[in-house]
């Protein structure tokens, strides 16, 4: 391929066989899919910076130019979504931490401790089914539970007297708890896969030294879990942040003061005069910002969590 081996007066046909058709074809296909996966996001980004006039006048792929450029849509989107954004953070961070912790202890009790293989297997199966069930199967009971059986808003009545709390925030709390409940099985599975790969030696050695189950967890297993905690945390944070069905059914209205960012986004930019696509794109990107940032830094861990899911 280097110039030295190529005859200076050689015809085009002489050069051709030296080219690797496979490599060229492969690069083309890879580039095509590169565009396929990025195009919708690219149109979203350029549209979010266009004025309403430019949105209709230019093609979706052209960047905003000159007069067509504006940050007004972003300003409005952030204004609309900021409460939802904060609500989502308030809900997602504690529920992620709790789920990761509970998933890790459950996996520990099921893998690194032996208290009856058959019973442990039965418990494991019950956890695994919990990963796959469609949430539709528990939606009616859930809404009945949080409205009629444990109405948090009434249980926590004194709390709503505080100036910065609103009555509707009880729903945010029930949403947080709901996410913990249904997040546990998958987190357990991710930790379990990791604990099975840990060598028995460390745990066995600690047992011989007379360390209790608790000491082994705190001194041996938890420190060794660090890389997996990262994977599970990233995965779970993304899942809860992006979730919509529970938000919709437990909080109900996108105008509620407790609405999460996905819920507010679903109702953004729609009115009688039609859809404001610039505003919607800016809102979508703003709502996706935390997950995009996490993905930019920890894409590897995210892929690892996905691949380990089964």
């Amino acid at each position, binding site marked *: 391929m280097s110039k030295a081996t190529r005859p200076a007066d050689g015809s085009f046909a002489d050069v051709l066989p030296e080219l690797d058709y496979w490599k060229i074809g492969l690069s083309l296909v890879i580039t095509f899919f590169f565009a396929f996966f*990025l195009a919708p996001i690219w149109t979203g980004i350029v549209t979010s910076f266009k004025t309403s006039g430019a949105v209709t006048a230019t093609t979706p792929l052209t960047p905003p130019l000159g007069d067509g450029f504006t940050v007004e849509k972003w300003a409005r989107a952030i204004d609309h979504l900021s409460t939802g954004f904060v609500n989502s953070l308030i809900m997602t961070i504690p529920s992620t931490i709790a789920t990761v912790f509970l998933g890790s202890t459950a996996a520990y009790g099921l893998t690194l401790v032996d208290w009856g293989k058959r019973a442990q297997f039965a418990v494991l199966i019950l956890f695994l089914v919990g990963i796959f069930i469609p949430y539709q199967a528990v939606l009616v009971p859930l809404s009945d539970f949080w409205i009629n059986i444990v109405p948090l808003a009434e249980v926590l009545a004194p709390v709503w007297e505080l100036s910065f709390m609103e009555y509707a925030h009880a729903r945010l709390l029930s949403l947080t708890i709901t996410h913990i409940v249904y997040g546990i099985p998958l987190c357990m599975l991710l930790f379990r896969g990791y604990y099975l790969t840990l060598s028995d030696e460390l745990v066995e050695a600690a047992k011989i030294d007379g360390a209790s189950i608790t000491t082994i967890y705190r001194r041996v297993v938890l420190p060794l879990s660090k890389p997996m905690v990262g994977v599970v945390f990233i995965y779970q944070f993304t899942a809860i942040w992006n979730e919509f069905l529970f938000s919709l059914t437990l909080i109900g209205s996108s105008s509620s003061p407790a609405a999460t960012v996905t819920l507010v986004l679903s109702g953004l930019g729609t009115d009688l005069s039609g859809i404001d696509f610039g505003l919607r794109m800016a809102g979508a990107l703003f709502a996706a910002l935390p997950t995009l940032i996490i993905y930019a830094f920890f894409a590897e861990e995210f892929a690892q969590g*996905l691949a380990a899911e089964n």
Partner: protein
Amino acid sequence: MAGSRDTVSESQNVGTGAERDWQTRLEVFSKSDFARSFPYWFVPFSIMGLGVYGGIGYNTLISLTDYEGFNEGPDFSPGNLDLEMYVQTVNDPWVWTTSKNTFVLLIVFTTVTMVLGLFLAVMLDRGIRYKEKIQTIYLLPMALSFVVTAQFWLWMYNVNNGLINLLLGAALIWQFSGYAMVVFLAGLQSIPDDQFEAAQVDGASVLRTYWRVIIPQLKSSSVSAAVVLVIFALKAFTFLFSMFGQYRVPKGTDILATLMVREAFKLQNWAYAAAIATILLLMALAVIAPYLHYQHKQGSL
């Protein structure tokens, strides 16, 4: 075992020793691995169990009542419990239409996503440059919420005004093929390189090697990816809701999952929705049970 039984019967003969024995046994039990590890797995297990199995049980119970509207809650008096809601679902032509749509979505979506995912994985597996970077871009849609991606696709639809079903299909495949790719890549990485090289030495082409030697070994990855995708297709609600911005979606795109949520949270037909949810659950279990059995037989549980 025999030895311990002897000590038990011996100490029982000693009268007051029986009580002491009971105490020592309790003490031994409290120090056993079972008792000590109990809080570790039982706390998360009971929280999850209450939500999942308690929820399913309660859902089944509600489906037997006539609970509807904004009232105080379901009436569980024995005279009120019957299978009426299930009879209604069977007689409802709309349930059949949405079931058919669910199956079409499930089969088309799962097949296309898996074929594309496998194709992308094989492409990236052949030691190309910037593999990690490319993989990151292909997987990016998986990190975004359906509510977010629906906005992008809705905008594309507005521009093209094509067939809505085609667009929905493209959008779902766009979102999930990166996932299938990652699962297949993990499977490909577990196959030793020398198999590939041996086939190459035998003069097989790259394509033929993949088709005959490598892909048949991806059965386990395929099953895992298929199960996750099928389960997703069964419960797909968010994407459809966000695309249309309302509970009612166009006729051709209405599936059981959207019908269930609409019956419950828009029309307040709680018992009827619970019955539809049971159908969905049974469909999901019909996929999960053979899958777990398969995994167990493979020794990968």
